[in-house]
């Protein structure tokens, strides 16, 4: 049993409940005990725009909470994962900054050492748990489906920091999908951005980015899109209707978190995976129960 501090960040625990539910449901089946980090806050990454020091401070604070428990940290949100990684690597290279941050953490009786390993869903599943282990637990492979992969920008970039997959040719999500029977292939828009980071101030542009990506995937004949980023999922699934309105196209692409797909393939009760909260038409897929069925 591997214990991991579950660091959810902001978007997952305040609205992307489906991601959180499927994480809490699926990972324990792989001998992972998720330990909540009760005192945690925002990772700081969104505040890079405002003040870099605050960003580093918040990242260090959240990692310090995990260090206190003596366990490694799992951040399912790529933006948090990048923010934490950046802080971890920067503080390692810059002891003065580390001291400065530690002097602030002291006020809360915290201490940041840098001993916590960081995981994201992608490397946790692909590298730590491993494809063989996953394959062993598949009960109902999703053989009839062909899905496109959406990694999320921060999952793979920038590669001067340790990222879960290659920046230009990531394949781990595809391999994970293939492991549970889903067919997949590369598409030109694979690395394109969902627009999520500018949604609050440039709503229409953000929705246009999302809409164009959904449309491209849909036009290329994929049955759906698989995500591992709560910001991307929010844009491509939760806001798919608004995106459709914005670009004036009809969009009906099922979008699911990979871990939801995994849960389905493992035969986990679908209501436990938060599938009712996917607003894209996931029940167009045969393997997915409609809300009525789920109830």
């Amino acid at each position, binding site marked *: 049993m591997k214990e991991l501090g579950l660091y959810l960040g902001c978007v997952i625990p*305040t609205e992307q409940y489906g991601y959180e539910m499927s994480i809490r449901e699926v990972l324990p089946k792989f001998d992972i005990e998720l330990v909540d980090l009760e005192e945690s806050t925002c990772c700081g990454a969104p505040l890079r725009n405002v003040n870099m020091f605050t960003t*580093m401070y918040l990242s260090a604070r959240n990692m310090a909470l995990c260090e206190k428990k003596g366990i490694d940290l799992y951040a399912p949100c790529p933006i948090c994962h990048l923010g934490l990684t950046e802080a971890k690597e920067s503080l390692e290279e*810059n002891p003065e900054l580390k001291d400065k941050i530690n002097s602030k953490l002291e006020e*809360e009786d915290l201490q940041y050492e840098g001993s916590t390993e960081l995981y994201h869903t992608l490397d946790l599943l692909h590298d730590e748990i491993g494809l063989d282990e996953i394959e062993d637990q598949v009960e109902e492979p999703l053989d009839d489906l062909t899905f496109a992969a959406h990694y999320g920008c*921060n999952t793979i970039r*920038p590669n001067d920091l340790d990222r879960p997959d290659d920046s230009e040719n990531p394949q781990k999500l595809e391999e994970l999908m293939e492991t549970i029977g889903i067919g997949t292939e590369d598409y030109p828009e694979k690395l394109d951005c969902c627009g*999520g980071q500018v949604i609050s101030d440039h709503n229409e542009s953000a929705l246009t*980015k999302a809409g164009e990506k959904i449309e491209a995937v849909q036009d290329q004949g994929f049955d759906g899109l698989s995500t591992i980023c709560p910001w991307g999922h929010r844009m491509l699934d939760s806001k798919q209707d608004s995106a459709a309105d914005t670009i004036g196209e009809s969009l009906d692409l099922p979008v699911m978190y990979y871990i939801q797909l995994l849960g389905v393939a493992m035969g986990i009760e679908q209501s436990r995976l938060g599938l009712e909260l996917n607003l894209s038409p996931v029940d167009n897929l045969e393997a997915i129960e409609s*809300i009525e069925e789920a109830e």
Partner: protein
Amino acid sequence: MSLIDLTSMAEPDEEEQEKIEETLEGLKEDIPDLCYQCGKCTSGCEAFILLELEPHSIMGKSKAGFIDELVNSDEIWTCMQCFKCQERCPQDLSPVRVIFALKNLAVAAGKEIPSGYQKMLQSVLGNGLIQQPKEVLNRANETRKREDLDLPPVPEPEDMDKVQQILMKATQEKLR
């Protein structure tokens, strides 16, 4: 300074220019001086078509020292933070991080920042997260809250006031 921008009569400001480096201290070497303006960043910029963000031109102006113009611009707030510009820069530079630094300078100079970022900052200072837990809809248009879904309460620091105080001070700090 031997340069003057004749459209605005602005002159390069070396002091402000140095602040970019200061703001980025401890991160990558992001000094724009080495940029040779190939434009690869703007060719692939996710925010160019819709929001007219031109990372190469931000690098060019930063390099020349026209910082004031950038700090006062709306352009710097359109970056989608996809990091493609940095990833693909043949000179290993990071326009996205220079843009972060410019935004930091704008905040430090008390410029008005877009309301979304303002709200996010206030929310983090208020309760530690960029937003409060929401009631969401399911596909049948029914509302769902965390507790409806058997999810535990959202994490929150026990002494939020103290964290708030620390954060308020932190926002006045620089990496160096």
